[in-house]
């Protein structure tokens, strides 16, 4: 047997056919997808735990205590697991507390995107006609604004408040949700699925709530929600850099990266890199969770 390239091996276990629902998890889904989702769930869990810890102030060190003797200490020194920042404050505690800045605003943004997006998506996909035309116009309109520019406009007009920002973020997230749901409904309609439900005599709200949203859009909504959380974190980070995010001394990952970055040129990477890595791993988690779930729930298993 030539082994010029990789040889693939296929095994029929025991010669018998196994039932899909009784297969062990690793045989039902592809290994990368399981890893993605496992990692993503771990991140979600950590974020939740951090939120609770921060909310009840159960932190390893006082996040606001300034220690001028120990500026920008490397990880592990003097009881600081992740070192200290440019004012000698404990990075680990500040990272945990930093979640507070995202959690509720992020949820608000997701809630706005999903709720408005669902209503518009269902209207556009199910009703069609003029509703669809108007909604397509609306989504195109929202998509015409670069998100950050719109936020700067709002900041200029009102004030740099995280809740205003997250509201804008929620609204700018509406088109993605609405288009995805409308698209899904169109696919279902093409398969005569909706007509069959109407012909059976089901009520419209049963068709929409049970058959469309619950059975066919739940995966999509979960994915949109996880992606939304990731976007909220990245957006706050960008705004922190621009000076409109969460203001010091309240920690957020964004303002930690930003303030730490001032010491970059001196070769002090850590105070900025620690929160940057936190952002990286968290967003990676949310994105991979979304992707993995999508592959699993939508049945994109390789044949």
């Amino acid at each position, binding site marked *: *047997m*030539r*082994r*010029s*390239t*990789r*040889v*693939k*091996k*296929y*095994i*029929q*276990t025991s*010669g*018998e*056919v*196994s*039932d*899909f629902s009784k*297969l062990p998890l690793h*045989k*039902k889904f592809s290994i990368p997808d399981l890893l993605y989702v496992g990692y993503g769930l771990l991140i979600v869990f950590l974020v939740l735990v951090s939120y609770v810890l921060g909310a009840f102030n159960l932190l390893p060190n006082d996040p606001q205590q300034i220690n001028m003797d120990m500026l920008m200490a490397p990880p592990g020194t003097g009881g600081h697991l992740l070192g200290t920042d440019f004012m000698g404050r404990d990075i680990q505690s500040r990272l945990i507390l930093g979640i507070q800045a995202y959690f509720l605003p992020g949820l608000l943004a997701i809630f706005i995107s999903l709720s408005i997006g669902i209503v518009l998506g269902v209207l556009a996909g199910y009703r069609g006609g003029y509703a669809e035309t108007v909604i397509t116009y609306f989504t195109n309109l929202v998509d015409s604004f670069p998100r950050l520019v719109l936020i700067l406009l709002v900041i200029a007009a009102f004030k740099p408040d995280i809740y205003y920002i997250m509201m804008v973020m929620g609204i700018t997230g509406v088109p993605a949700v609405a288009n995805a749901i409308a698209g899904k409904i169109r696919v279902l309609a093409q398969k005569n699925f909706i007509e069959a439900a109407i012909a059976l005599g089901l009520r419209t709200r049963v068709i929409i709530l049970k058959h469309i949203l619950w059975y066919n859009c739940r995966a999509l909504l979960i994915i949109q929600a996880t992606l939304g959380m990731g976007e909220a974190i990245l957006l706050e980070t960008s705004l922190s850099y621009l000076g409109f995010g969460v203001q010091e001394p309240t920690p957020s990952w964004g303002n930690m990266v930003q303030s730490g970055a001032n010491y970059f040129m001196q070769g002090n990477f850590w105070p900025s890199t620690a929160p940057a890595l936190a952002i990286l791993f968290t967003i990676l988690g949310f994105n991979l969770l979304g992707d993995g779930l999508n592959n699993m729930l939508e049945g994109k*298993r*390789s*044949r």
Partner: protein
Amino acid sequence: MAQPLLKIENLRTYFYAHSKQAFVRSVDGVSLEVGQRETVGVVGESGSGKSITAMSVMGLISGGPGVIGGSIHYASDKVQKNLLEGLENYVQLEEGNGRVLTVKKDESGWQKASEKLMAGMRGKEIAMIFQNPRASLNPYITVGEQITEAVRLHSGISAVKEARERAIHWLERVKIDSPRLRYNSYPSGMSGGMCQRAMIAMALSSEPSLLIADEPTTGLDATIQSKIVDLLQELKNETGISTLLISHDISVITRLSDRVAVLYGGAVVEYGPASQLLDAQAGFKHPYTAALLASVPNQQKIRARANLQAIEGEVPDTINTPPGCRFYARCNQITPEIRDKCAAIHPELKDVAPGHQVRCWRFIN
């Protein structure tokens, strides 16, 4: 008879169902011959492996493990070779309980080797037409250009103008109205029947020795189907091309074939001259063929308003292949003497008349 143009021997093409951790034995030991100037009809239901057989001949199988065994000898005036030459170097099988349990295959290695073997074959020696012609033509290019491309690839005509004239000539031969006008049509602007004609023109423009027609009439309207069958008949008489005709529609097979192979569950269950095999009155028939012929509505039944003779049970999936005869569960001709054998042992193809073979225990011994 001289050497057959195409000789498929013991072809096996498997896929792997990850969700069931088992092989889909789509084609499991198919042997077929297509002689020179002969039309062989392959009839079977969905999942019988008829299309996969055709795709295996063309080397178009994607998805693993794919073709894992057998040989396909092709012998025209110009080319003689085994299209699965050297396959055994890429595949290792482990069997148990009389069936394949493990396949090790160097897929990309075989893919490369297969492409090399198929170079100069596809489109030039063996041409293929498909079901659903509108989706099978490139929607972004005009029909004429697609035929011109085929002409330039295979006919040694490189001048665009000449190739264009040739394409128009072929459009005319497949009886497309105002071929010059239609040359510039996109597939979306043509009816299904017209697209199928264009497909036929494209396939025949390189004057191949073998045409594989995979469900050429499926999905078309009855009147159009009949016209396409007429066209294939006419072109066959004019060009003398050998055809492997695949269809689930027995009436199409009846009209066009010289010999017929009936596929069931990935294997040939009956193979013989069309006149004997498709004649409902003739004896020596595989129970499946007999039941299949009986399940089609005919004038007598319509007049009598009788129920059809349905074959009970479901079309077999080729994942759960039973150890014995694959038709065992649905068969209505099992006699007590052979029941045990039917259930346990897969029968061999057996000659029941000259050139007529049946895979059934009733005809063995």
